[in-house]
């Protein structure tokens, strides 16, 4: 949960999305940004055959890695330790926070500079560290902007995408001492850079995420465009890397196809400006790099997802954000409305599994199942199918189900409505009688109650025709069975 909803009440997507729809700035900012991202991606996947082949390869690499996940994680740990990287396991975000804090305290570190890490957002690490006297500063420009404004990221790749240049200019003008107001993007970047350079030099520790971890070599792959990732992982004497346990692949040769899919899908780039392959701390006689490297591997319900062979596909995700860029719901309500670390379509299948299908029930139903996300997913996650599966688990999950809060979103009225639906549509005579009756009543003004009231808020009520197709077909001599 990225945004606190005030008190301990559950997140409410219905309320937050309705509020977001009323903010014309959100819609305009997202529409423009998403249009640009979709066009850039499409230009790089112009050849359908190449796209199909590459995504099939990406999906197979991720599926193969997941099929052997426990074994690969053990091997990753061994190789990392051989490389001098200390490996820590955390079952919960709370445990991960404590682990990070313990490492920092062991080094007397109170100033941490961070590269981009969605796992750290999952942990609410910044707030946790601040409460324990550690300054945790975001160095990715977008993350820096949202941190300055006391916000959470609204997109997993472009955290400040909900803001336009004017909003960012005002923010930096207010929050940074001696910064003059400017809407020139290069000048704005220079202002942030000036602040961050100093922080990189002062920080006693750096923190980063991990895009891919390679089991056979114990290598942590980190891609970025701003150089802040390299600064965070190489300048301070201590580097802590955070990863979700699903990010491991078997071999080094698995990396290039995944990176090719990731950068093209995410930002429409064939390659990022920086590709960091971190294989350990500074060696004997080397002149740079951290003295110590720690890897914290987070579970946070991932092993629960892993346990179900169908839902496991959720863990293939390489966090490119293409699903949100193409989602007609995300593009209209923006990322904050989801109240999740990962918004958009991937969040709609992930959050119910990590937080519970009852708690995030509304989120699972907030999809027209249009499938735009499935079409662009570089690792072929069947997002709409998994949504339908989770909806079913929420309403009818048995006690033995691996899904969190399975069966707890059961609604007696809904069950009754579907039982009536089933009876009517399973009884041809009754169905024909009712549909004929509705057709005969087509002249009556439609009652504005229940579902029709919501429907008619922006549409005319649908009116039945005077005669059903069943009647017309019979009248015109179309053969029955």
């Amino acid at each position: 949960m990225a945004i606190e909803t005030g008190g301990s009440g559950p997140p409410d997507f219905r309320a937050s999305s309705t509020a977001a729809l009323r903010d014309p700035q959100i819609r305009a900012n997202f529409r423009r940004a998403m249009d640009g991202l979709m066009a850039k991606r499409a230009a790089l996947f112009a050849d359908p055959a190449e796209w199909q082949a590459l995504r099939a390869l990406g999906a197979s690499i991720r599926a193969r890695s997941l099929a052997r996940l426990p074994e690969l994680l053990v091997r990753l740990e061994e190789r990392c330790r051989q490389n001098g990287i200390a490996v820590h396991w955390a079952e919960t975000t709370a445990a991960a926070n404590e682990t990070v804090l313990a490492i920092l305290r062991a080094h007397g570190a109170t100033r941490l500079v961070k590269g981009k890490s969605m796992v750290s957002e999952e942990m609410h690490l910044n707030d946790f560290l601040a409460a324990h006297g550690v300054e945790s500063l975001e160095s990715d420009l977008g993350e820096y902007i949202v941190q300055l404004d006391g916000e959470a990221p609204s997109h997993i790749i472009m955290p400040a995408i909900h803001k336009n240049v004017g909003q960012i200019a005002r923010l930096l003008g207010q929050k940074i001492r001696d910064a003059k107001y400017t809407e020139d993007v290069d000048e704005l970047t220079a202002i942030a850079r000036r602040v961050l350079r100093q922080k990189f030099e002062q920080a006693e520790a750096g923190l980063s995420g991990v895009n891919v971890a390679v089991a056979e070599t114990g290598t942590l792959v980190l891609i970025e465009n701003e150089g802040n990732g390299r600064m965070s992982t190489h300048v301070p004497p201590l580097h802590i890397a955070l990863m979700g346990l699903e990010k491991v692949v078997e071999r080094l040769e698995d990396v290039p196809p995944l990176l090719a899919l990731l950068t093209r899908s995410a930002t429409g780039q064939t390659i990022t400006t920086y590709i960091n392959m971190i294989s350990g701390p500074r060696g004997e006689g080397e002149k740079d790099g951290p003295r110590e490297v720690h890897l914290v591997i987070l579970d946070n319900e991932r092993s629960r997802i892993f346990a179900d062979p169908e839902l496991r596909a959720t863990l293939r995700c390489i966090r490119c954000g293409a699903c949100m860029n193409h989602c007609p719901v995300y593009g209209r309500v923006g990322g904050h409305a989801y109240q999740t670390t990962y918004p958009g379509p991937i969040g709609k299948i992930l959050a119910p599994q990590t937080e519970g299908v009852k708690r995030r029930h509304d989120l699972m139903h907030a999809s027209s199942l249009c499938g735009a996300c499935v079409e662009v997913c570089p690792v072929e996650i069947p997002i709409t199918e998994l949504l339908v599966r989770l909806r079913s688990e929420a309403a009818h999950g048995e006690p033995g189900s691996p899904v969190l809060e399975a069966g707890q979103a059961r609604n007696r009225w809904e069950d009754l409505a579907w039982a009536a639906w089933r009876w009517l549509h399973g009884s041809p005579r009754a169905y024909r009688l009712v549909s004929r009756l509705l057709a005969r009543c087509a002249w009556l003004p439609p009652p504005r109650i229940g579902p029709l009231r919501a429907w008619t808020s922006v549409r005319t009520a649908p009116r039945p025709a005077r005669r059903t197709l069943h009647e017309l077909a019979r009248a015109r001599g179309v053969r029955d069975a």
Partner: protein
Amino acid sequence: MAERREESRPRAVYFYGTCLVDLFFPAAGMAGIELLRREGLEVVFPQGQTCCGQPPFNCGHSAAALAVARAQIALFPQPWPVVVPSGSCAAMMKRHYPELFAGEPDHPAAEAFAARVYELTQFLVGVLGVQLDDKSQRSQRSKASQLGQREQRGQRGQGGQPVRVTWHSSCHALRELGVREEPLALLGQLANVELAPLARERECCGFGGTFSIRFPEISAAMVADKAADVTATGASELLSGDCGCLLNIAGHLARQGSPVRARHIAEFLLERTGGD
């Protein structure tokens, strides 16, 4: 082209009307039936049919969906194609019946049924290879042309009244069935029909069945954008192959007092080619 396909051409087909067509767009259903009959096929419409089961399936109530789907399959025993004037319902039967019936004793029967399902335009183009002749002029329509006899469709290419239309593909036709070119190919055969594409033709209209009821505000924002896109094309008609999308977009256009007429492609094709 038609000759080449003659061998695989079936003698008879089943027509699956769908519940939305049955109640709200029966003329579209009859137009679909006429388009098939005109190609010399016997069309069978089992009167016991109701709904494909997609609404409860999508909502996670698969037991209700399974019971009704099983009752539908039983109504189509002959090995004939099942033609559906809806991409969404066809996708439910073709793509989702096999998963719905997974582990059930009649899974093989569901798979065999799914293999026989076609969306209407997919069938007209892919199996029948129909060639349409644009000759509709409402004022000149004769009784003979209403019958739509093949031999009377001479003088190809003259065309009817010039009209500009736009096309909305349902997401399920597009993404679950891969039906995109077929309806465009049919419209392209009509000499005086100008197709003005939507700027965002792949974007969902916001219907999504119960989604439009559960999240009316989000659905409203989506359909408003779609209606604006339709209006911007300058088309006088919006055509689609899915009645859910049509109910949604047409309802919004009507609420705005838009003069754009929204209807099912089958009705339009039949009218333009001299049927009624």
